């Protein structure tokens, strides 16, 4: 739909009427800043001085009612709506690729309630994750959700793409931690999911919206579990002769108890990043494990852990390296350690059952290293389940093409190759970063005929197709 003449100004008046004049902006500074997130293509594009994708309006609502009214305005004019939390997504999910409205949720950052008896915390979804954690800490609790984006990502963002934190092996992913939400549907209706996540009242409404990446509605409030601070948090590290041995040990451990952190690094990543950040200079597959909880329970867990690791021939490196890993858990993402422009890189995280882990690891490694010159592959397994684990595999290219469009083309082809290798061997497109703009084109391949379920939801809830167009393959 094309807007002629001063129609844009008429629409602006309606938006200002909802949120106030000062919270609707078309300033160049704003559309610039909201045109770059953490998606490699978006940052590369900005680095080469290219025009960012600009929203037509940057809008900042303050209440659920304002969001509801905004949806009605957007639907009437059929203007695309893109939801923005921290803008720290790596998949381009928040990018305003269709222009229109960019909704920054961060004014909606209030704490609603901490219920110490039920062990829950409720907050508005525009709150930065570290602030939520601060509120829990003030009362002596923790959300136990420690993603690396904790200082910039928001609650809404984490829910939107089914995010994960470093303690997930014990406490779960964000979708496990969320009890319920308040959501504004595309038609403006405000709904609430049930007060508890476990019930026998039909399909799980929470899980329809969690992971929907802004395509089916806008989450405005959410309730999460909070946990007591553990009596003991004990770190340890081991060195396996190879990746395969480590996977088997991890699987065995998960059958006995849940460590909070368990991370197994393949040989190349051990040799490079682990050596650089932690200082371990050894050949093999490095694994750090953290057990936490009551001291007596942790003592038992550690005994079992040591037995299992010994069974697979691991060298016990003691607690020093495990502690150092924990101290540096964010350092891995800091300048000088994380890949950065001008390199081309990506995390093709996937998740699978144990029988497919090594198959997928080698298939992806071969597919990337054999088909693309100058690209290397490193991986680690960082989030474990009883039935399998996720593989956090990355490709790195030190000298990508200097032409931005050639770079995009190569980038997307590498992704296709890697992700297809995973899917072919029983893996899933992505474990916890989401689909966004980057991987939408692969959704139909992943789901096959099951895709129609999402498409039906999308059509039913968002008949005008205004919610975050071109994302999630919807």
């Amino acid at each position, binding site marked *: 739909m094309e807007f002629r003449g001063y129609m844009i100004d008429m629409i602006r008046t309606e938006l200002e009427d909802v949120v106030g004049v000062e919270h609707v902006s078309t300033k160049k*500074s704003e559309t*610039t800043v909201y045109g770059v997130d953490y998606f490699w293509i978006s940052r590369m594009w900005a*680095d080469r001085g290219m025009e960012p994708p600009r929203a037509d309006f940057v809008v*900042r609502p303050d209440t659920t009612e304002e969001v509801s009214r905004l949806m009605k305005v957007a639907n009437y004019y059929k203007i695309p709506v893109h939801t923005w939390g*921290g803008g720290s997504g790596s998949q381009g999910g928040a990018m305003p690729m269709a222009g229109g409205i960019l909704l920054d949720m961060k*004014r909606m*950052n209030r704490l609603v309630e901490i219920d110490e008896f039920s062990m829950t915390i409720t907050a508005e979804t525009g709150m930065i994750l570290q602030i939520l954690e601060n509120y829990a800490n003030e009362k002596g609790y923790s959300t136990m959700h420690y993603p690396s984006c904790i200082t910039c990502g928001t609650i809404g963002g984490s829910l939107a793409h089914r995010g994960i934190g470093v303690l997930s092996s014990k406490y779960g992913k964000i979708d496990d931690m969320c009890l319920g939400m308040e959501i504004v549907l595309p038609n403006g209706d405000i709904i609430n999911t049930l007060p508890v996540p476990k019930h026998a009242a039909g399909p799980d409404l929470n899980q329809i919206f969690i992971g929907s990446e802004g395509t089916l509605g806008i989450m405005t409030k959410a309730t999460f579990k909070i946990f007591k601070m553990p009596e003991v948090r004990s770190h340890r590290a081991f060195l396996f002769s190879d990746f395969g041995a480590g996977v088997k040990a991890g699987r065995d451990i998960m059958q006995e108890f849940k460590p909070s952190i368990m991370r197994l690094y393949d040989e190349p990543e051990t040799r490079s990043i682990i050596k650089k950040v932690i200082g371990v200079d050894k050949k093999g597959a490095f694994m750090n494990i953290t057990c936490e909880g009551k001291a007596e329970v942790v003592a038992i867990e550690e005994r079992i852990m040591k037995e299992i690791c010994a069974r697979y021939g691991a060298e016990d490196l003691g607690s020093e390296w495990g502690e150092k890993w924990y101290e540096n858990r*964010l350092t891995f993402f*800091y300048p000088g350690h994380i890949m950065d422009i001008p390199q081309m890189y990506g995390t093709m995280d996937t998740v699978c059952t144990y029988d497919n882990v090594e198959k997928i690891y080698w298939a992806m490694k071969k597919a990337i290293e054999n088909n693309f010159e100058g690209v290397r592959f490193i991986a680690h397994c960082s989030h474990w389940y009883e039935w399998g684990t996720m593989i956090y595999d990355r490709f790195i290219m030190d000298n990508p093409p200097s032409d931005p469009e050639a770079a995009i083309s190569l980038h997307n082809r590498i992704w296709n190759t890697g992700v297809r290798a995973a899917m072919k061997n029983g893996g899933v497109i992505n474990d916890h970063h989401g689909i966004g703009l980057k991987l939408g084109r692969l959704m139909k391949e992943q789901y096959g005929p099951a895709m129609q379920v999402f498409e039906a939801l999308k059509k039913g809830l968002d008949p005008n197709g205004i919610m975050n167009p071109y994302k999630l393959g919807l």
Partner: protein
Amino acid sequence: MCRYICPVGLQTGSELNNARAKALLISYAVRGQKFDESFAEAMYQCCLCGACSQDCATGFEPPVFIREARTEAVVNDVVPPNVQNVITSVLDNDNIFGVKAEETSNRLKSLLPDAKEKAEVLIYVGHSALCRAPEIAKAFIALCGKAGIDFTILHDEGQSGAELGDLIGYVEETVDKAKMVVEKINATGAKKVVPLDPNCTRVMRQEYPAWECDLKPEVQTATAFMAELIREGKLRPGKIETGLTTFHDPCKLSRDLDEVNEAREILSAMGIHITEMLLNRKWTKCCGTEILKAHSPNITELTAGGRWDDARRLGIRTMVTACPGCYDVLGEHTPEGMEVKDIFMMLAEACRC
């Protein structure tokens, strides 16, 4: 990391209000985008409190490049009108409050009419105290008298360069103002200069050497000065009763000047127990600053509110500050049932001055 600790961004909820956005805008300007008024406005919506530097893993100090971007804004004539008014006020009258230079001089004269020309200690009152919280200056002077200090003040303080530097950057105009102040201070023959405003202290101690301003006396923070007098027994404060009390660390004092203990020592000497807010000491959450308040009071209303929220969640009744700027900014938005107190006014009360 900057986004979870920027006092402005946390309250306005705008992606523009954090160091990442400002760095991104500067990167784009370097890559050919026009540095227009909207870019300049973003640069001025910042307290320069340094919370972002505290946790920035890149090694950059955002306040440094934000000040440089402000110079760029001035050079390119894209400074927003509300900020330009404040700049003009400083250039014309040496203060951000629009108070005429003659008037500030009169106020200084009435603070200490018989101010000596020469003394061991020079108290640099600063415009925040002079124009917005003169009772702090009165209390400090009374304490010096009680302690028997050989001190004086200037009857014309000029502009230290702290406010002008934050508004237009560290350019010749700022350095010239600083040099005039240095001349006046040096003429007193003082061995020590004690500014009441930590922003002035910071600039005198850390920037004057880089600006080749040869300030002869040692620069001491007001809190360290008083803490020392208490330790030496020159001041003997009695106990003061307060409700649940917290201390708000001034951002320049705790971060830039690396001082967190002296104020707490003073409070302890008065028998006051502090309940610490979550973001305290080097992690203090800036109130907003006088400069931001001067041109964007709508923002400081939010930032002050954010700091009061931190206190309210703990059930705090009294928030103590050690900076005339914090006292004024927080004081203007005190919630019902709570109060802000200045540490030197409390000390003067405790010492029966």
